[in-house]
């Protein structure tokens, strides 16, 4: 019995997003769709252990969900959401093998669901929670553990998100035209937020946290198949694959973080690097000016291609950062560009870049700016200034080991 349940739950996790998406198209409401999908699971858990798992479980679940919806409307049972929408379901609309419908429909519905879950009317937190719930198939408890938040908070967040979408009558559709770029950016932001939450998780965390990287990667890959003509989608996937390739190399034997340039590259996952480079190639095959995710992926790819840190193509990295600065300018981009320029051209050119951003408000208390500046000054032989900058950097960081490292570097100047 336990085995049957585990299998059924596995089937459900596989079928869940398509089920919710298909029901959302019919009911025009993701909240109702979720309820109906849950009902279908309950039915499956009742019937399949005895009757056996059907040949086409996805079709069975969809038909069951629709049937239950019709029954509920007949019995006058009230759904929380717009039950008038369920009137669109007639017995004729319920075909046992509805999955004869072209795969395109399923793809379209999934894409619609993605855009709705990531709608900018919702806060980023709400988008993340809703996306993980409806597209990732995570339980509320899992999401709560993943974000180290109380479960009721996450549950409420999801409830409110669905209500906000309903109240605003957010249409269940894929945005086109002017809207599309901004809406897509919102989707990519959500996926990358999930990835970073997982990437920042440490080995000591609950397993659901590092697993977020896998969830984000899976969502990204799904999105790449749903929207294959969008280079930024492939760019984001490429970036995540390559970053994920380093998960095994980031931590030292006593748990200390290891910087990219110091990592043991034999521990980099070559399968993921290969996938990342392939995704990047896919992005670049689409003729369009390169966007921020594609450019960040291109930078990550430079590192991934270098067999050793010394073999890094810093010239190319510096050039890509320059391109990124044109597309998504920020002092952080300039700072990273400066580091690459110093490796490619020398500290003098890099120092000019750092000085140009030093007064930016976001850089005032950011320890990495004086840290980089200090290293550049040291390379230029301006030792007293270098020492002062590195000590300043040390005073700005809240991380003990980082402070010690910076003070040590200051001493060694």
């Amino acid at each position: 019995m336990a085995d049957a349940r585990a299998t059924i739950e596995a089937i459900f996790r596989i079928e869940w997003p398509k089920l919710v998406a298909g029901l959302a198209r019919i009911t025009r409401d993701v909240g109702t769709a979720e309820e109906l999908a849950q009902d279908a699971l309950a039915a499956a858990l009742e019937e399949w252990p005895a009757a056996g798992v059907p040949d086409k479980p996805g079709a069975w679940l969809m038909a069951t969900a629709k049937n239950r919806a019709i029954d509920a409307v007949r019995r006058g049972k009230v759904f929380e959401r717009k039950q008038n929408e369920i009137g669109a379901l007639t017995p004729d609309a319920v075909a046992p093998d509805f999955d004869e419908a072209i795969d395109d429909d399923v793809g379209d519905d999934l894409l619609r669901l993605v855009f709705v879950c990531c709608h900018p009317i919702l806060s980023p937190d709400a988008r993340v929670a809703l996306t993980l719930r409806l597209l990732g198939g995570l339980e509320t408890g899992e999401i709560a553990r993943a974000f180290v938040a109380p479960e009721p908070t996450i549950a409420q967040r999801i409830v409110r998100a669905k209500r906000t979408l309903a109240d605003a009558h957010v249409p269940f559709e894929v945005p086109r035209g002017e809207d599309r770029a901004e809406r897509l950016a919102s989707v990519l932001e959500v996926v990358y937020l999930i990835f970073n939450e997982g990437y920042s998780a440490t080995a000591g965390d609950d397993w659901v946290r590092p697993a977020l990287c896998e969830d984000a990667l899976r969502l990204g890959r799904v999105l790449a198949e749903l929207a294959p003509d969008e280079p930024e989608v492939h760019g984001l996937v490429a970036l995540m694959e390559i970053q994920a390739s380093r998960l095994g190399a980031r931590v030292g034997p006593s748990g200390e973080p290891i910087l990219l340039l110091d990592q043991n590259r034999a521990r980099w996952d070559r399968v993921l690097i290969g996938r990342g480079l392939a995704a990047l190639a896919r992005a670049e095959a689409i003729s369009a000016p390169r966007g921020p995710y594609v450019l960040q992926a291109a930078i990550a790819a430079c590192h991934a291609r270098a067999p050793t840190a010394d073999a890094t193509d810093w010239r190319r990295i510096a050039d890509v950062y320059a391109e990124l600065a044109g597309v998504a300018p920020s002092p952080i981009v300039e700072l990273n560009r400066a580091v690459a320029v110093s490796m490619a051209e020398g500290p003098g050119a890099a120092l000019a870049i750092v000085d140009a951003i030093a007064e930016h408000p976001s850089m005032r208390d950011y320890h990495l700016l004086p840290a980089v500046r200090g290293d550049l000054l040291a390379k230029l032989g301006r030792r007293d200034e270098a020492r002062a900058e590195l000590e300043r950097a040390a005073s700005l960081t809240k991380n003990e080991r980082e402070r010690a490292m910076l003070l040590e570097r200051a001493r060694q100047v």
Partner: protein
Amino acid sequence: MRFMVLVPGDEGYEEGRMPSQQELATMGKFNEELVKAGVMLAGEGLHPTKKGAKLVFGQGKPRVVDGPFAEAKEVLGGFWLIQTKTREEAIEWMSRAPFPPGTTLVLRQVFDPSDFAASDPTGELRAKEAELRKKIETRG
């Protein structure tokens, strides 16, 4: 978690029998489903053993034995590398593969970096990554 799926060579495999158009189309559709679900990591077919070699390690350099390996009863024909959240999902996915009766697929779980994980007793890795996150967020 990741699983390697080992696929046996089928009837006529060692003689280099190529799959029919129908077989290719059916398997192609299944592979497509794996890709669309974000589950597929890698998948390749292997040449018959006559193109391969064995390295038999003993004292000194290993001894080379060229294929074909006539004595092999079950020859590996190909593999998949898939990523799923649970073992049950990996099993469920591969149950949907279009293989003829008599085929046995072997699923083996792949070691993850987290299986070798160190701990983060001082919380500094967390802090380091928070720094990285800030960098990424402000990058735009």
